[in-house]
C-alpha cells in the first residue's frame, strides 16, 4: 500500500503525474473558491468568515500551482504561492487580533450587529 503511495510521488522526468489533467485541478480550485465565497457571504460568525477567506486563498494557491505545473513546473508559480501563504499568515494574525479586540467590545462576533454604517 505504501508502494502505491510512493508511486504517486512524482517521478523525476517531465511533468509529474501527467494523467491528472490541469483543468480538473482548476475545477477543484474553482469549487473551493466558491465554497469560500459562500462561507464569507452567509455565515454570521466572523471567525468562520475568516476561515472562508483562508479557503479562498488556498484555492488561489492551487490555481497558481496548477498553472505553474502546466508550464513545466515554472518556479514563478511557486514563488507566488509562497508569497500568498506568507500574506495569508500575516492577514490571519492581524485579523484575529482585531477579532479579539472586537470581541472585547461587543462580546459577540455576530456580523449582523455591526450596522453603524447604515445610510
Amino acid at each position, binding site marked *: 500500500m505504501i508502494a*502505491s503511495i510512493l*508511486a*504517486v*510521488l512524482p517521478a*523525476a522526468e517531465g511533468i*509529474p*503525474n501527467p*494523467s*491528472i489533467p490541469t*483543468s*480538473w*485541478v482548476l*475545477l477543484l480550485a*474553482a*469549487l*473551493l473558491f*466558491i*465554497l*469560500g*465565497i*459562500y462561507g464569507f457571504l452567509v455565515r454570521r*460568525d466572523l*471567525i*468562520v468568515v*475568516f*476561515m*472562508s477567506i*483562508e*479557503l479562498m486563498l*488556498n484555492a488561489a*494557491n*492551487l490555481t497558481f*500551482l*496548477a498553472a*505553474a*505545473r*502546466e*508550464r*513545466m*513546473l*515554472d*518556479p*514563478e508559480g*511557486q514563488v507566488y*504561492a509562497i*508569497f500568498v*501563504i*506568507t500574506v*495569508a*499568515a*500575516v492577514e*490571519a*494574525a492581524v485579523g*484575529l487580533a*482585531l*477579532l*479579539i*479586540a472586537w470581541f472585547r467590545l461587543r*462580546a459577540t*462576533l455576530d456580523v449582523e450587529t455591526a450596522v453603524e454604517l447604515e445610510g
Partner: protein
Amino acid sequence: MALPVFLILAAGAVFFAANVVLRRNPAECAVHLVGSFFCLAGIYLMIGFPFLAALQLLVYAGAIMVLFLFVIMLLDLRREEPRENPRISTIAPLAMGLLFGLLAVVLPDMPVAVATGRGAVAGAGGAEGGKELANYLFGRHLLTFEATSLLLLAGIFGVVVLAKRRTSRKADLERLLENIEAESRTERKEPPLVGAGSEGVAS
C-alpha cells in the same frame, strides 16, 4: 494510476471545505479546515510541488489554523444562530451555483500562457527542486521577498498594539460581564452559563 488518488484527495478537500462552511460550531469548522489543508497538501505533492506541500502543512495547517483554534478556545464561541432573515442564505447558493457553472464552462480551455523556456528543466520538482526554487526566489524576486518580511514585521507590531489593554483590567471585566449578561439574555436556547463562562475568562 494517479488519477483515482487525485480524485479521492480532491473529494476529501471539497468535503472538508463544505463542512467548514456549513458546520454550526466554529471549532468543528476549524478542524475541517485543517483536514482540507491536508488534502490540498497531498494534491500539491501529486502535481509536482513537494516544497509547497510541505510549506502548506507547516505554515497553514501548523501555524495559522493553530492560531484560529487558539482564538476560538480563548473566546469560547458558542454555536452560531441561524440568520433571522434567510434572504441571503437562499440567494447565495443560487449565485454560487451559477458562478461555478460559469467557471466550469470557462476554465478547461483557459489558454495558459506558453511555457517559458526556464520551466523546461526536467526534474525541477524533485529533491533538489527546492535549491532551484531558492535561487529563483532570492534572485529575481529578492525585492518581493524583502517586502513580505517587512509585512510580517508590520503584522507583528500591529498585533501587539491591538492586543494591548487600554482600559484597566477591572473595567474590562465589568464590561465583559455586562456583555455576557447581554449576550446570555439574547441566547434563546441554552440556559445562561454565567457561572462557567465567567471564571474561564477571568484567568
